[in-house]
């Protein structure tokens, strides 16, 4: 039942489009690299760049939270908010992108009780773009996403595609295959132990 619900959510998301007002999906963030260039409101981190989100807020049910993104180069754009504080407007990563996130899936037990499962999301791609106003990470180029149950070694779900967009405000994932090919979404069944 839980798997069916999960599949339904994922499949329904394939054609979903999202757009939301500005949010604080990442919140506090740390950017580190061997070299960091800061020019106005653009910061380019190169050489083992790492963007780590450090939000203390609990993960919202039905939402996804970025833990970190690593790449050869990460560029972030800042903007001034109404309080004149600098906030991250967008981040783009290129070269060997690795992304880790957590998602909170709302499911039901066999007897119909609500159940929240926090799953690990790990992704690799050639490049990635995180836009705050869209609350989404767009991964491009040989994208592989693994969604893993807590404590499990093998991924619960495997997604491959050329362009995959992971929504951070909800658990929707939009998948596009490479030209002339289809995207793949695989759920790995496992024995029900209980």
């Amino acid at each position, binding site marked *: 039942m839980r798997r069916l619900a999960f599949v339904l959510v994922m499949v329904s998301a394939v054609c979903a489009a999202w757009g939301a007002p500005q949010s604080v999906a990442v919140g*506090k*963030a*740390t*950017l*580190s690299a061997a070299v*960091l*260039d800061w*020019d106005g409101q653009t910061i380019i981190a190169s050489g083992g760049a790492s963007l780590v989100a450090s939000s203390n807020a609990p993960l919202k049910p039905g939402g996804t939270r970025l833990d970190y993104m690593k790449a050869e180069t990460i560029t972030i754009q800042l903007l001034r908010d109404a309080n004149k504080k600098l906030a*991250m407007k967008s981040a783009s990563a290129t070269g060997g992108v690795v992304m880790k996130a957590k998602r909170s899936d709302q499911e039901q037990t066999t007897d119909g009780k609500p159940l929240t499962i926090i799953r690990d999301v790990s992704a690799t791609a050639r490049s990635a773009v995180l836009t705050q106003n869209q609350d989404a990470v767009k991964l491009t180029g040989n994208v592989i996403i693994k969604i893993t149950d807590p404590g499990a070694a093998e991924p619960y779900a495997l997604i491959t595609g050329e362009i995959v967009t992971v929504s951070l405000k909800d658990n929707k994932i939009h998948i596009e295959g490479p030209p002339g090919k289809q995207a793949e979404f695989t759920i790995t069944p496992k024995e029900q132990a209980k």
Partner: protein
Amino acid sequence: MLILGLTCLAGCSGNKETKAGSPGVSNKAASKSGKQTAEKTALQAEFTKARIIWNDGKGRRVMEARFKEAVASQSGKIAVVELRDAKADLYKDGRIAATLSAPRIVADGRRKEVRASGGVKIISAAEGASAVCDEVTWKSHLNKLFGAGSVRMTRNNVSVTADGFQADTALKKARFTNAKLGIE
């Protein structure tokens, strides 16, 4: 440019100081007369609680420094000045770009640079940015600051820690090495 400015060290500071008339600040106070020393050094002088203004060859302000103590030496047209407990306004195109303060500042006419050490603080005049580090070298003709050691630069709610940095004098553009940037 800086070399020429340094050559008029004593005269420039005297004129300006008289106009400014800051209480407790005098270029004459505790001044020791210049003396001929080694071949390379034609003039050496010591000052306490004074102010020095350096202009370039075109008369444009390069740096204005206040300090508790200074030792200046001059050889030909080249001067080297060491300031203690100093605060210096760094100019770019005739305007203050940043203010630098440090326990020790050396204005080296030979190398065309100003070196600050002992824990340096730089405050940008325009950008609302500031930086601290162990030591920094300012090359006015390049409009560049080179900082090293325990670097921390802050602009609004964003801060960077790094091993080293180079930036323009106003801290508008900066490059950091082994850096970590935090957005609060």
